[in-house]
């Protein structure tokens, strides 16, 4: 094996690029190389694996049967040691390599190394290479208590707004075509630049809105590179802020959507062994009651009196009958989106004030699916999505005539 001291600029062409923004060191790359060689028939195509490196100068390459390894100065993402930049900066650095090398398909794997397998790489690349897809989003196998924000807000909201049902819009694993890379590499509108720095959902939203072929692929269980932060209110603010900004910026587009359609899904869902465990929702209900007691003046700036009345009734409900109706939850999210747009109060305050309401929804959902399996829980999420779509008219009315419905 010859070691070639070349830079990314000197790579003439690469058919495929596999990007690993969370790879920590070159020493552990052997596993990655083996997996990629298994996934990619490197005798037929040339592939480049882009990994994060601290080298600031020209990066040495290992070339093995058409597979090139490129340690590249990708910024460290949040949560990892030495993190200085956001996820978007890391992904954009790899997009730059894809563009320079003229790759026809790029796989981005945001998981930790233990989640990197040949099968996963193939699942991201094959729909792009063989079926002409522009964006392939990973669809994770999950138990009924995973991805609560995704199930309760992101999936139904993005489906309703943009008309395409991508189950995991907040994925970190993607397959992208050259056309998609071009689109995502372009600088964002100045109003949205700051909000896009630390999240990746904007990639899915841009693809859904544009004339791109978006599909999903079953990806197995999610392996997280970065441990989920425990501060729920920060998480909600971090996730929902960019989406609400996107809603405001692209209002003309989503207001023309009338219904949602499923996207093509490749692969077969992985069977996940559901471990039975009892969930105590009383602290969540108490947190909601405390929120209602103290935050009612704040919520009254955003929510109409009818919604506040429903919430008041909910505070009096016994734990076993604690249920938030899907329509009510959808309207709450829409009201907060409108409040975010109108800047009724400081946007960070607004998003964090949603936390007790979100906890109430989690408690309600947990009680409903307590004895359900994963499939039944997934049907429950689909019911919620339908409720979001039914309340779409409410969103449109409030969005177009906010003063008429002003609390």
């Amino acid at each position, binding site marked *: 094996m010859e070691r070639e001291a070349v830079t990314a600029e000197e790579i003439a062409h690469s058919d495929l690029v596999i990007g690993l923004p969370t790879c920590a060191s070159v020493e552990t790359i052997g596993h990655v190389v083996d997996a990629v060689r298994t996934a990619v028939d490197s005798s037929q195509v040339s592939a480049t694996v882009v990994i994060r490196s601290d080298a600031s100068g020209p990066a040495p390459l290992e070339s093995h049967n058409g597979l090139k390894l490129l340690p590249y100065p990708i910024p460290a993402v949040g949560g990892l040691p030495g993190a200085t930049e956001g996820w978007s900066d890391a992904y954009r650095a790899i997009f730059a390599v894809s563009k320079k090398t003229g790759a026809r398909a790029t796989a981005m794997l945001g998981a930790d190394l233990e989640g990197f397998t040949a099968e996963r790489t193939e699942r991201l690349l094959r729909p792009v290479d063989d079926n002409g897809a522009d964006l392939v989003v990973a669809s994770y196998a999950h138990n009924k208590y995973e991805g609560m924000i*995704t199930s309760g807000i992101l999936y139904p909201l993005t489906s309703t707004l943009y008309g395409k049902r991508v189950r995991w819009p907040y994925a970190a694993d993607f397959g992208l075509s050259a056309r998609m890379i071009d689109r995502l590499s372009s600088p964002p509108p100045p109003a949205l630049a700051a909000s896009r720095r630390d999240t990746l959902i904007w990639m899915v939203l841009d693809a859904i809105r544009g004339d791109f072929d978006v599909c999903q692929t079953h990806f197995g269980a999610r392996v997280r590179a970065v441990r989920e932060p425990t501060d*729920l209110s920060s998480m909600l603010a971090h996730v929902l802020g960019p989406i609400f900004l996107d809603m405001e910026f692209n209002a003309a587009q989503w207001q023309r959507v009338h219904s949602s359609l499923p996207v093509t899904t490749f692969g077969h869902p992985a069977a996940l062994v559901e471990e039975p465990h009892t969930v105590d929702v009383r602290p969540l209900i108490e*947190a909601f009651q405390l929120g209602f007691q103290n935050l009612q003046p704040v919520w009254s700036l955003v929510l109409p009196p009818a919604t506040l009345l429903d919430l008041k009734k909910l505070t009096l409900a016994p734990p076993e009958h604690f249920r938030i109706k899907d329509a009510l939850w959808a309207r709450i999210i829409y009201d907060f989106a409108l409040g975010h747009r109108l800047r009724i109060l400081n946007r960070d305050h607004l998003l964090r004030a949603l936390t007790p309401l979100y906890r109430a929804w989690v408690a309600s959902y947990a009680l409903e699916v307590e004895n359900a399996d994963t499939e039944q829980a997934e049907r429950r999420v689909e019911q919620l999505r339908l409720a979001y779509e039914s309340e779409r008219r409410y969103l449109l009315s409030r969005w177009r005539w906010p003063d008429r419905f002003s609390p």
Partner: protein
Amino acid sequence: MWEQASQALNQSWNRVVRSVAGLLPGIVALIVALLVSFLLAWLLAFLVRQILRSMQFDRRLMESGASGLSDIAPRNSPALLVERAVFWIVILMGLLIGIAAFDTTLTSQLLLRIFSYLPQVAAAVILLIIGNFFAHFLGRSVLIGAVNMNLQYASLLSAGVKWMVLVLAVTMALDHLGIGGGVVNVAFGILFGGIVLALALAVGLGSKDLVSRSLERQSSRRPEEVEEPFQHL
């Protein structure tokens, strides 16, 4: 003798009449200035009222969190407060201009002192407005943060922060106006020092068992721990 007394009285009377006659132009000028300023004040107040109504000033101020202004405003309307402030400021300016027409040393010095004091008044008003805004902003931040941390005393904490910032703003404004001198600073220092000392004693000595139980309750019942089976993203 009677003639001398009569002459003296006549001279005194003439002096008084001359003095009053000398003041008459000033008085007329004062009256005219007041009338003009009254007219101008009414016009400006009308304009300000129309502008603030079209801006929905009261609603926007309430939503921005500066609700403290509504509490002190007449009929709980900050717009009405601004309108009346504009009205009376213009009347005051007219009065001062009218007083300047007397053209005496006393009035000149008085006017000079009033006008030199006006910038400090303006700065104090700005301090109060900014202080009020920050008090409500910080109060709301603390309230939302404390509720999300499941602190039962979130409202108390929020009110405490809000009033501390307001007291600070008022103290700074009074200091800027030169009212109270060192008394205000000393009182402020005693108040804050007392609060901090009381908290330290409460936590360290008097309420340590209560705080300890509360902290144990918080750590054992935090929803984040119960939410272990939940992964949110």
